């Protein structure tokens, strides 16, 4: 994972000077990318509202959110608009971020997901549905420490078809019915495949 990130970091990710000077202190740049560091930055942003801190978070998250939204079907311009909306919302709402409850990436991912769903609703129908499917006040369980590396290796060990189902859910944002049409599989098999994949992934996540 670290190699992968570094490679991208050297070639593509735009960085601010601030970022660059920090990375001199930590040759592999990982200092700005560990979940703890991101969490700290986001909590600091809520407290001090410092634009440099915001720029750091932006450099890390914006290009990743853009890829994420594009894989879900947003074209480049729309993806970029949504990234900006997401990051602006991060700036506005970071006071309410609680580092004890969620990782920075989880919190930001939720904002992006909700904005994406709002956008889809507006595009797909004239009816602006006032349903509130992802309420902010919803129950947030005590933060468990998940080992991202373990989830990644667990994903790699899934049978190909199950992995494909998981990718379609997360990357392409497809519903079960759409997946069943795409892959020419009965709906029941789509669900059972996802269920098996989820069970395997969470078993490995839980292992210490």
């Amino acid at each position, binding site marked *: 994972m670290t190699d992968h990130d570094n490679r991208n970091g050297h070639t593509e*990710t735009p960085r601010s000077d601030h970022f660059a000077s920090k990375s001199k202190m930590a040759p592999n740049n990982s200092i700005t990318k560990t979940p703890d560091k991101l969490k700290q930055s986001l909590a600091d942003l809520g407290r001090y509202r410092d634009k440099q801190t915001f720029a750091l978070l932006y450099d890390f998250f914006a290009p990743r959110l853009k890829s994420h939204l594009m894989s879900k079907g947003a074209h480049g311009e729309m993806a970029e608009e949504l990234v900006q909306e997401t990051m602006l919302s991060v700036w506005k709402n970071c006071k309410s971020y609680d580092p004890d409850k969620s990782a920075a990436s989880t919190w930001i991912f939720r904002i992006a997901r909700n904005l994406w769903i709002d956008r889809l609703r507006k595009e797909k129908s004239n009816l602006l549905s006032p349903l509130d499917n992802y309420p902010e006040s919803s129950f947030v369980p005590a933060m468990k420490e998940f080992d991202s590396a373990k989830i990644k290796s667990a994903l790699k060990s899934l049978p190909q078809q199950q992995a494909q189902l998981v990718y379609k859910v997360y990357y392409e944002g497809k519903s079960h019915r759409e997946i069943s049409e795409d892959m020419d599989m009965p709906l029941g098999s789509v*669900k059972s495949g996802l269920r098996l994949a989820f069970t395997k992934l969470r078993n490995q996540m839980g292992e210490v």
Partner: protein
Amino acid sequence: MTTHHPDLSTLMSYSAGSLPDAIATVVAAHLSLCDHCSCHVQEAEQIGISLLEQLEPTPMSAGAKDDILSMLGETTQAAEPAKPEPHVPDDADVPSPLRHLLGHYLDDLHWKTMAPGLKQFILPAAESNLRLLKIAPGTCMPSHGHTGSELTLVLRGSYSDELGRFCAGDVADLDPDIQHQPVADTHEGCICLIATDAPLRFNGLVPRLLQPFFQL
């Protein structure tokens, strides 16, 4: 005590934001009552984050960062209006995701009679069907199957079908190969929140003929 929960595949898709609107609403309503499933959703979010981290970053266009940095000043100036928490009566029985649409009480809704013992209230949802159904005690729904996903949350009372007994807070997450004929089996009748992303498939001729009128 809930004994029937949404399928793990449904919770996974909910966390990814990939469920049809109406089905996501039923999940949200169940989550507001069920810590067990809320934990699964958190795990599923974690899987999503790992997948997100594996994506190659796509560079933003040249001016994007400067644009957003120049907007930050403006947003700090605008005082954020503190949102007062709306007061919710203790006996409110409308699930929280639906409250700003329906108010607090199921009994205050304008229910429409569909058939003897059967009333419904249709909710707006994009691209999928969302309705509340009120089944009088002892009333039997026509036997039906499904052409797509159906998710049902019991809000009041209970019903029984081929799969078991479903009480308030329980969710029936049905696969399309399941045929069922729910019967409201308590004295107060049963109110359910039902989402479908495809029409139901009725077995009898009469219910099939009536289907267009029920909007089922």
